[in-house]
């Protein structure tokens, strides 16, 4: 009997073997090590950690290797692993103003206390293919150690806040929900929204943020501050009663400053959008900050007309593991439903015995 999709166990086993072969490629070329990926593809590792919601560079590198470089697949692997982990503590809120900076810029002021620090960036590189890399030329080694900022670097938006020019954010002190434990319900709190955006697909947030710049929910952003560097993570075990540092993580933080015209009860003031990502991930942090601000439209009584301002639209579709899964499930057999549709369409094409009238 003809059975096209009823492949069964043997087919699945064979598919796994073929996948392993495809991943390995030509065996005369040395196999890629996880540590090599971790060291030499740090930006891919950062993205997988951010959207995988797990700060573990080694596992992220492993996921990239296992997924043959398919980053959405790698994010999925890391997420599935994360589900099985036990939570033993929640950290104290991290203090990014105490960040050990590798890079810091503000587009809103020529100079800021603590100074601007260019750091490692693709900005200002000419996008010319470097054929010395193709020839596997050796990197000559750093000419100068980046002089990590030693001065105090207060946050730029804090300076505006001192003058009352930017809307103060209120910390209600209420417990923060965890969207990986509790289902997201609408309208979501800002904390939940930021969690969803932090896990959200970089490309999706980039495109939505871009759409606000092109007029679909325009909110006049300025890159108030972007900082990249290491931040200590503190926990406060109940039995100790005082906080202890458990290590440092690399973060990218972006604070956008946006225009706001004021309302019946308030004077004109700047508002802000916030983005945060693991590792060095500026594009993600900026996209996130733009979308965070556009999703605050309701809060500032702005007219909600564009996709980037619609909370349900953005939050329900920003997760690439969910999106990739649901799109890919179209590859599963649907022949029962299709049979039902075939039967229906044949019936509808027959002249109706009793016209609707």
């Amino acid at each position, binding site marked *: 009997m003809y059975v096209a999709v009823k492949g069964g166990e043997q087919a699945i086993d064979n598919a796994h073997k073929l996948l392993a072969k495809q991943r390995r490629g030509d065996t005369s070329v040395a196999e890629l090590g996880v540590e090599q990926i971790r060291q030499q593809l740090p930006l891919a590792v950062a993205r997988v950690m951010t959207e995988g919601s797990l700060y573990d560079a080694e596992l992220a590198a492993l996921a990239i290797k296992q997924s043959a470089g398919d980053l959405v697949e790698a994010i999925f692997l890391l997420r599935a692993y994360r589900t099985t982990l036990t939570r033993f503590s929640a950290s104290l809120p991290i203090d990014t103003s105490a960040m050990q900076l590798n890079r810091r810029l503000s587009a809103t002021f020529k100079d800021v206390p603590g100074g601007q620090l260019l750091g490692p960036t693709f900005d200002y590189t000419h996008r010319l293919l470097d054929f010395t890399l193709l020839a596997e030329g050796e990197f000559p080694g750093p000419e100068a150690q980046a002089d990590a900022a030693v001065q105090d670097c207060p946050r730029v938006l804090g300076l505006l806040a001192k003058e009352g020019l930017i809307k103060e954010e209120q910390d209600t002190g209420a417990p923060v929900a965890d969207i990986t434990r509790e289902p997201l319900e609408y309208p979501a709190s800002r904390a939940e929204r930021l969690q969803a955006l932090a896990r959200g697909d970089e490309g999706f947030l980039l495109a939505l943020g871009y759409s606000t710049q092109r007029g679909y929910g325009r909110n006049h952003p300025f890159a108030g501050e972007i900082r990249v560097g290491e931040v200590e993570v503190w926990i406060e075990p109940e039995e100790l009663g005082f906080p202890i540092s458990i290590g440092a993580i690399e973060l990218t933080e972006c604070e956008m400053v946006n225009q706001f015209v004021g*309302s*019946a009860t308030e004077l004109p003031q700047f508002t802000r959008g916030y983005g945060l990502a693991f590792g060095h991930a500026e594009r993600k942090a900026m996209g996130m900050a733009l979308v965070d601000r556009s999703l605050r439209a309701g809060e500032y009584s702005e007219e909600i007309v564009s996709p980037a301002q619609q909370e349900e639209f953005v939050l329900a579709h920003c997760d690439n593991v969910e999106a990739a899964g649901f799109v890919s499930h179209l590859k599963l057999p649907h022949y029962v439903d299709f049979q039902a549709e075939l039967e229906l369409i044949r019936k509808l094409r027959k002249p109706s015995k009793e016209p*609707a*009238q």
Partner: protein
Amino acid sequence: MNAAQQIDRDAVSDRTQPLLKVRGLTKLYGPEKGCQDVSFELYPGEVLGIVGESGSGKSTLLSLLSGRCPPDSGVIDYRLADTHKSAGQWLDLYSASEAERRTLLRTEWGFVEQNPRDGLRMAVSAGANIGERLMAQGVRNYQALRAAGLDWLNQVEIDPARIDDLPRTFSGGMQQRLQIARNLVSGPRLVFMDEPTGGLDVSVQARLLDLMRGLVRELDLAVVIVTHDLAVARLLADRLMVMRRSHVVETGLTDQILDDPQHPYSQLLVSSVLQP
């Protein structure tokens, strides 16, 4: 129950009592933006026009009255129909549950939007648009829905042969008449209208006004209509409220206000329109 029976039944006891009692209604978006301290009573079968220039607060007032937006302060009491479970009782609109408000909005009340696209389901046929309220009330007989659709198309002077056509194939005037049919099919007692002739050509406006006037009298509808067009107000409204900068500056019978306005703003408004 058809409209005629409804009138017979309600006529005696119903007409002497107000349908809607509004006291101290206030909603402000900014200084003098919105509406403040509005009070009035509306009787069955009465048409109340709210006039004023744009930004005077008339649309805000309509949103508050129709249960779409809670006021900062003030009370709206609505007298429920005799057929209702709680016959003849007063319902405090914003103390009522959302379920009660929604039920009211799809049974005893209607709302005609300025833009018919906001009040119609553009993706389904004219017949489905008319039938929706009946289906929401539990009518489960296709032929009955069909009959109601044909009857109402007739009443609003649309060719019944167009029952299966989509609203987007209709002209602006026809869409507005379809929206009216969609509201009236449930036999409402009170209909809110927001500039119902606003987007239409003058000749189309006249026909629609004529139709509306006929239906309002025939069905004995109470209507609150917002318009900036005094000609529309004169033709339809029994009474007028003139609004300016969130306040009601003058109220009275339509002829009185239009022929002998007292408040300087009403005088300005009336004099700015060519007299017939």
